[in-house]
């Protein structure tokens, strides 16, 4: 089937540098997600791999063969566009059949192929309609069907769920995972939604300003962010970041607090650091010695949990708490910290401190 390797992709649009040396290795059969905020170069990366964008530098290998100069047709890939790009004058059937027709597939195989994929995506009853008569979710399924009707080297998906409402998006997430499991095949999926990335991916590449920040499994990216930016981008609620520095066996905060220094922090004393604490690794209940003093700033009840905003000096902590938690703004409390799960970054480079021995 298909491996996709992009090496050192560079692309500028006028003055804007969209890709600044992007390197990706997508293993055969993987559900590989490229995650990044808008403007990070995700779509450009995908279009470059598809052959729709001419590169300034870099190479694309498909199944180990250099395909950098190949036309999109020759690359044998399928793509789902964010706007779906369904041909407006053609019926759903013809839209789905298009990739087969383009490759002069015998008529009976076209019929069988369209039927099979229409069944897979539950769109049999839409086949004679035109795109204008479809809802957003239906268009989405048709666009997917057009990609899935063939067995290309890899499926490229450009934020396919972004234009759907929340309920449909959740539904389609499950659906896509199911399809990937049923059909197999290599999926290269681009999104700015970390929930999509964390829930669907085998591997995630985090992209920022045209450069890959980290590649890893969802757990690795979440549990061991390579730098402060990745830690801030992945995870909801956002990770709380506190300025501090090491002093002997203690971490001393810019706001005056002290915590025991995690064993694995290698930074020399006095060097400016940033302590990253996720909401679920903090607690308003008393647990262990490590604690930060603060005062309640606000409560955010979310049904299954309540987020407590705690002010530590001028800095803010988001703490995940039981839904039954109570408290008034201004009330003083101490927040327990699970230091084994804390992240420490170098304030200057933003890189995570080496976590040897962890």
């Amino acid at each position: 089937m298909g491996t996709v390797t992009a090496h050192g992709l560079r692309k500028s649009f006028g003055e804007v540098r969209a890709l600044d040396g992007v390197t990706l290795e997508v293993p055969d059969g993987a559900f590989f997600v490229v995650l990044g905020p808008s403007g990070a170069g995700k779509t450009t990366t995908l279009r470059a791999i598809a052959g729709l964008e001419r590169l300034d530098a870099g190479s694309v290998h498909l199944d180990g063969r250099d395909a950098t100069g190949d036309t999109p047709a020759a690359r044998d890939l399928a793509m789902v566009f964010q706007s779906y790009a369904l041909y407006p004058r053609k019926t759903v059937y013809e839209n789905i059949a298009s990739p087969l027709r383009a490759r002069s597939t015998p008529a009976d195989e076209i019929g069988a192929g369209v039927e099979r994929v229409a069944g897979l995506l539950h769109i049999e009853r839409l086949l004679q309609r035109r795109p204008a008569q479809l809802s957003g979710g239906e268009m989405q399924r048709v666009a997917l069907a057009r990609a899935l009707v063939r067995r290309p080297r890899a499926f490229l998906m450009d934020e396919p769920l972004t234009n759907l409402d929340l309920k449909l998006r959740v539904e389609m997430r499950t659906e896509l995972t199911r399809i990937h499991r049923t059909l197999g095949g290599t999926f290269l999926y681009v999104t700015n939604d970390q929930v999509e990335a964390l829930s669907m991916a085998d591997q995630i590449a985090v992209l920022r300003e045209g450069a890959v920040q980290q590649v890893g499994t969802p757990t690795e990216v979440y549990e061991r962010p390579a730098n402060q930016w990745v830690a801030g981008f992945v995870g909801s609620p956002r990770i709380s970041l506190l300025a501090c520095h090491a002093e002997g066996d203690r971490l001393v905060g810019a706001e005056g607090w002290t915590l025991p220094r995690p064993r694995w922090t290698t930074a020399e004393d006095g060097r400016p650091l940033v302590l990253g604490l996720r909401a679920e690794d903090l607690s308003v209940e008393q647990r262990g010695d490590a604690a930060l003093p603060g005062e309640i700033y606000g409560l955010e009840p979310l049904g299954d949990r309540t987020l407590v905003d705690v002010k530590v000096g001028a800095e803010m902590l988001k703490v995940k708490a039981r839904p039954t938690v109570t408290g008034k703004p201004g009330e003083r409390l101490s927040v327990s910290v699970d230091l084994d799960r804390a992240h420490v970054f170098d304030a200057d480079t933003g890189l995570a401190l080496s976590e040897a021995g962890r």
Partner: protein
Amino acid sequence: MAISVDEAVPAPPVPDDARRARRRGGTGRAVVEVALLTVVAVAMLFPVLWMLETSIKEGQDIYAVPAKLFGFDVTLDHYKDVFVAPGGGRSDLSVALLNSVVVAGSSTVLATLLGVPAGWAYSRFTLKGEKDQLFFILSTRFMPPVVVVIPIFLMYRSLGLIDTQLGLILIYTAFNVPFTIWMMKGFVDEVPSEYEDAAMLDGYTRLQAFWRFTLPLLVPGIAATAVFALIFSWNEFVYAIFLTSSQEVRTAPPAIAGLIGGSTVDWGLVAASAVVFALPVLVFAYMVRKHLVAGVTLGAVRR
């Protein structure tokens, strides 16, 4: 959201109550409106009406004083004279009209064949100095024909293109291509390039993608552009009168103009030939009016 060119045409406005009420707002105002519009309509339509009347009046009724607006004898002799020479056979005017059809038709077809792919290319690809190129292309339309007709006359003389239909076809094409490129670039801009991207990933080549997926969506735009090009070529007078002289080559505008002058003017013939000359464009524009409206309003709707 993707929309096709057809859908881009706004539905005819539904007269809502609010607007009707505002219209009715003052009966006095409505009366003034109607009165003014009537004056404008009469002023605009009177020459046309006069032309139609003159073309079917007997000779002495044309010169009658006071003019006979009604109750004249109707004759179609003038129309016969447009097509049939006094001694029998084809008249010079009918030859001129045929020449006009050939010259205007060919130059429109040529301009469309050249301009549509060029407009597509300017829209879809980033080219070096694209804006400068487009400005240069447009700049060829800045000058009125009268200004360049002398140099063109001299060039045509050395090329042997004076008094040939090919010469007229070429110069009209040259005038229509820039217009076609600009119009078509606008229309292609409106069609999402993702259709072509998707088609290329389906396995089509770039040209196939254009031909099969984008071109069908451009038909209204092409029709609108071609009608404008056709009208320009059909009506063109300055180049025609400078660059052609013989009856066999001449197009209708200079031929009709040639009827006036000399010792006597057959106004009936002038009017009849003017009607015959105006008719094809009117009929053609009427036939493609749906596309014309689509073409003119297309840019107003954003995706």
